[in-house]
């Protein structure tokens, strides 16, 4: 397992978002919060590309937007969870309680409302570094 003690092992993160602006925001905040850690970040601009890159890279963590063309975030999460153990961080503008509850039932690693910021990313990375699931509870930010 990569992460969880890291620095010596490379952690692989895939960011899937149809907005290049949001990809950059997520990547910049992640690099800042993970400063000094060994981390490789890849990008995909829709769900379909996200699935292809997931299969090729087998990332440790995926940041997934829900509203995307070609294959929605929800469909992508379903496929990823069927095929691997990659931990999923949902990053969405959708603030509806039902969406949050639906994602919690899917046992994603974390659910984050956009926009991501330093504080949210710091909490998220803290949990990623500790590789901490705190039981089955989804980190909700």
């Amino acid at each position, binding site marked *: 397992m990569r992460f969880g003690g890291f620095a010596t092992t490379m952690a692989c993160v895939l960011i899937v978002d*149809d*907005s*290049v*602006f*949001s990809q950059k*925001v997520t990547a910049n905040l992640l690099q800042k919060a993970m400063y000094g850690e060994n981390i490789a970040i890849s990008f995909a601009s829709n769900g379909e590309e996200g699935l292809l890159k997931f299969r090729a890279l087998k990332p440790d963590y995926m940041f997934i937007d829900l*509203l*995307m*063309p070609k294959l929605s975030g929800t469909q992508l999460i379903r496929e990823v969870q069927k095929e691997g153990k990659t931990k999923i961080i949902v990053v969405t*503008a*959708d*603030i*509806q*309680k*039902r969406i949050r509850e639906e994602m919690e039932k899917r046992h994603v690693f974390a659910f984050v409302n*956009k*926009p991501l*910021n330093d504080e949210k990313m710091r909490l998220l990375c803290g949990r990623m570094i500790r590789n901490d699931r705190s039981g089955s509870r989804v980190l909700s930010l």
Partner: protein
Amino acid sequence: MDREFFRCDTLNELFNIGVKRAADMLSEIVHRKVSLQIPKIMVSESEEKRLKLGEQFSGPFDGALMVSTISFQNSLNGKANLIFPADKIKKLVALCSAEGIFPPEDIAFTDVDFDVVREIGNIILNCILGEISNLVDLHLVYDLPRVVVYNRIDFNQDIGREKDHSVMILFVTFLIDNTEIEGAVIIDLAVESYRDLLRLLDGIEAGI
């Protein structure tokens, strides 16, 4: 309490909460304090009211406009639009991208401009729609957001012809540092959905 008053008051409150949350989120994106001025919500139900609403769009909304739109279905059917005068978009994008450089305003829009406005529109409109959805326990399913630039919009004609729809309009001015960005949110609901929403608000008043 008078039912009409309660409905209007609740809609106002919902929009205010949604827009306030949207301003907080915008503040996080631009890393600056964002102040907000929100006048009351205006709703069109009759043709006469629709025409009056169209007349409200003047000044900053007379020229080219960039419109970010999200359509939604399921519990309610309609679409939400966030409208910004096009001449303010470059400033907004510069603030969001943290470059802080304001390019000349006559430069054509780039893919980056569209991407940033689509994403900001997505976040702001989700705040407003999400607040409504959470309060009255609805589930909205969104389409992909899209952004279009119009050289000019004839709001009288556009709002006036939507006979099977009810239109709710909110003029919002964001003040980011010394940059004032006037915007408008237009929520266009199918008449049946508008009635459903009012029924749900009535249920809150009745304590259901």
